[in-house]
């Protein structure tokens, strides 16, 4: 992860006019994005839960 991040930070900035939309749609794969784990700090994604049905809650504690 560190090596990947270093490579990314060193890469030239290419401006993109519109950020691509991220969609959560029935019948489509859930977006594959990397997030940090609140518990461990390690990077992970929803793909880590494949192999069993997953009920994913998107929320905030407020």
């Amino acid at each position: 992860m560190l090596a990947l991040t270093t490579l990314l930070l060193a890469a030239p900035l290419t401006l993109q006019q519109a950020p691509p939309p991220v969609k959560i749609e029935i019948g489509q794969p859930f977006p594959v994005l990397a997030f940090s784990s609140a518990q461990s700090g390690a990077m992970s994604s929803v793909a880590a839960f494949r192999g069993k049905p997953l009920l994913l809650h998107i929320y905030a504690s407020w």
Partner: protein
Amino acid sequence: MPGWHENLNDLVADGSMHMAGILQEQHPQRTLLFHQWKQMDWPLLVDGLNRLQVKVVPLHILIDAQGVVVAVNPRADAVRKFVGENPATGVRGSAKTVSFKAATGSALERADAAYLAGELNQAIAGYGKLADATPEQGIPRFRLGVALRRRFEQQGAAADFSAAVQAWKAALDRDPNQYIWRRRIQQFGPRLDKPYPFYDWVDLARKDIAARGEQAVKLAVEPRGAEISRPARALEQAPDALSPDPDGRILRDEGFIRVSSMVVNDTQGRPNGRVHVQLDPVAARQAHWNNEAEPLRMWLDLPSGWNSDQLLLEHAPPAHATSGETRTLEFELQWPAALKPGTHTLPAYLLYNVCEDVDGTCLYRRQDLTVQVVIPEARE
């Protein structure tokens, strides 16, 4: 969320399904504390940047074993039925992450990567450049605000907090239906604009956790002020008070305490805001607070037609004789609805006891302050 845990945790416990969460807030430790309080144990991923681009929470997404979305906001019995009809495949998930593409990643992805790596200056520069290049896009502005707020929490520069709120406001102007972005401002904004108190549950959670004999999750950033204040329907009347130095006779501070202020406006354009004042002892002068004399006070010289929930604010000092911490004061402010767009000023002053050098003299000093209230032009 505790209801979902209670209703379906047996299916997690017997290996039939996973439950997990993705947070849409700035401070993940607060949700960990909430989970500890409610004795919930599912894995939590952090999406403080709102990279999923969801506009509201909560959302509940049922995903099959291959990673395909099956239902959005299903009922618990429908989840149970689906799990019963679609057992685990035996294929284990992979923790591999493929989000960032080194060769073709966009500028936004690069800035996100910098933020996630903790390279906040790089992230802020990247988001700022993107915001300049995409005047109609809210996303880089929102993420710029997230990174600025995080840098403020790490380094304490009040200008970063102010810039964060401006960036969030600019994002929300571009998509007023984005309630994740709106909540990020309201978290620090006036009570009249609050849908709920945000983090008022933290104290109760800690008490309950302590009563169970557990050590509560430590918070990286303690919620305070606006973050724990209750919503209000009207501005509370300020208690009667007298200006403690009406003629300005107290000697002025000569560089011991640095004061900054900023106003978080109502997100719906109503004429009120919450004012955040920050006081930092100047390290170069080894300035520190004298806590054995009068407490820090702040007086507002409200212009005609303006109102506040407080005229005279007071900061309770810590128990030590001296201390060097950053201090904050917050108050609600309401200005005349007819005020024209532009910058308006609220005069105020602070009185405090400050000491110079480790064994230096302690002085009672006054510092005048002008709070700037910006009324934006209506966006076309």
